[in-house]
């Protein structure tokens, strides 16, 4: 009389089999390498050892984590924040039941995961990238800074807005060329963008952004006014995270698309966020 939603399947085995057949690896069980609280509890950092996800994820992609609690069935999607060899870092906040269970994980524990999922930011153009993030939207931008730091033809300028604690600054500063940040009493990312504008060459700049929708729309307007191409990573409640259920619809100029599989990254044009 089994009622388990999954089985224990070690990540190495699942991945080896899938790769041999040219398929993507399904849900699997990975080991937790580290679990920390950031800046007095404003967020948490979870490091998971999953060679496949760590070595194939691109900035903007996410992984599904599954709470170590079979009664909390649905996936918890988290943007990949940083990769290091076989390990990947996730930065998250405790919101409800699933993240509370994740926060109890200790190094050596196991956690189920799927991914990497979704389409990454397009970072192919050379130039300056403004990584504009708010709150828990910053993790994929940390990954973008890491990716850009490998390149000679691009610079990463982190522009982060926080409610209070600037928990992600140390994480992004390790890779970004510059890190600007602000927290609510002082202003928001638009305040920072306005301050930074004198140093900006719109023609060779791009914005990639992730955060609350209101913030992203403001960023879209700011970018549109300056004709800076912008990409946005959306959040939506998901049923599967890999494109099977159509729970995560978003209206775009190309019709109703799936945030999980057609996104989470969309251009300002796709979203129709192009009015300054």
């Amino acid at each position, binding site marked *: 009389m089994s009622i388990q939603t999954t*089985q224990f399947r070690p990540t190495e085995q699942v991945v080896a089999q899938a790769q041999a057949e040219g398929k993507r690896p399904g849900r699997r069980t990975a080991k937790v390498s580290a679990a920390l609280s950031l800046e007095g509890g404003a967020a948490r950092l979870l490091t998971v050892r999953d060679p496949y996800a760590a070595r194939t994820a691109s900035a903007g992609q996410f992984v599904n984590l599954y709470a170590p609690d079979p009664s909390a*069935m649905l996936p918890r999607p988290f943007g990949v924040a940083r990769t290091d060899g076989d390990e990947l870092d996730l930065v998250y906040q405790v919101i409800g039941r699933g993240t509370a269970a994740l926060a109890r994980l200790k190094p050596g524990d196991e956690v189920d995961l799927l991914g990497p999922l979704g389409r990454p930011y397009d970072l192919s153009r050379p130039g300056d990238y403004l990584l504009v993030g708010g709150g828990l939207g910053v993790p994929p931008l940390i990954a973008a800074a890491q990716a850009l730091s490998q390149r000679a033809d691009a610079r990463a300028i982190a522009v982060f807005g926080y409610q209070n604690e600037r928990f992600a600054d140390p994480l992004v500063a390790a890779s970004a060329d510059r890190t600007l940040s602000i927290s609510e009493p002082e202003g928001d990312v638009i305040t920072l963008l306005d301050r930074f504008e004198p140093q900006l060459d719109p023609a060779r700049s791009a914005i990639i952004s992730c955060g609350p929708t209101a913030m992203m729309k403001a960023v879209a307007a700011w970018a549109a006014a300056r004709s800076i191409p912008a990409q946005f990573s959306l959040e939506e409640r998901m049923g*599967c995270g*890999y494109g099977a259920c159509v729970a995560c619809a978003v209206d775009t100029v190309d019709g109703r698309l799936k945030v999980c599989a057609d996104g989470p990254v969309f251009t300002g044009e796709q979203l129709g966020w192009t009015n300054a």
Partner: protein
Amino acid sequence: MDERMSMDGFDPLEPYTYRHPTQVAGVVWKNPVGAASGTFKLDACQDFYDVSQLGAISTKGVSPVAWEGNPTPRTAESPSGMVNAVGLQNPGVDDYLVDELPRLKDLGALVVTNVAGHSDDDYAQVVAKLADSPADMLEINVSCPNVTHGGMSAGTDPVGLERLISRLRAMTDKPMVVKLTPNVTDIAAVARAAANGGADALSLINTLVGMRLDTTTGRPIIDNVTGGVSGPAILPIALACVWKVRQALPEMPIIGMGGIASGSDALEFLYAGANAVEVGAAALVDPVAPVRIARQLDELLDQRPELAETLEKGSSWK
């Protein structure tokens, strides 16, 4: 003993020959486990496994024209389950006929095409277009709780249902499955109406009406307010529905579903009276779950020769 270990060696990609086929309304499924409608998308799933490995694939409901579905959020979690109100977003039957269906057939899948409508005419329009298609079976979804007209209402009124199925029956020779809702006082009465209308098989259950509210705002989480509950939470309810319909209609082929997450759960449905099963929510939280469950069930059936023999008849415990 420890189930956690039992599938350590499970490989969804390794060639595997199923030993226990079943039949549903004369159609042979290579194993009794299919993918449930609305939880399978070809583009998404074929990246993870060979779709011809499943007993059948029940596709997302197709409507006469493209439907855009409900606004988001469309899903919420519930204990051992989920609530969804996708609202049958789909590109319409014409697109289906030129895109997903031929691709599925090319890949060797046995296809159960799920038919959606807002009205009897809608259903008829879709069935007319599918009559000469390569679909192996049709599944008339009269049980979706997430569309305003048609949908579930068609499946709660035995008189209207019999009329609808009779009408569709006359339009095609394809084996016709009618998908029932548990949101009724007497599912056996609805099952009988479907049988009287000419259904070749029944599939059950669709989701139960449910909702969640956000206690920080006091408002429903899902934009549609209510949605359909699926996942392990509904397993015992689904088993009772299958059992009741099997008692009422001893000869009717039944595809059982609702909360199946393991081979053992699937076996429980066979004992309750199902000839085959489908996996829904479990596939959303592990893409390869239907394949895993098919293998687990195959192994469990090895130890139950008596059940394997009567599988095609829908062997309930009685």
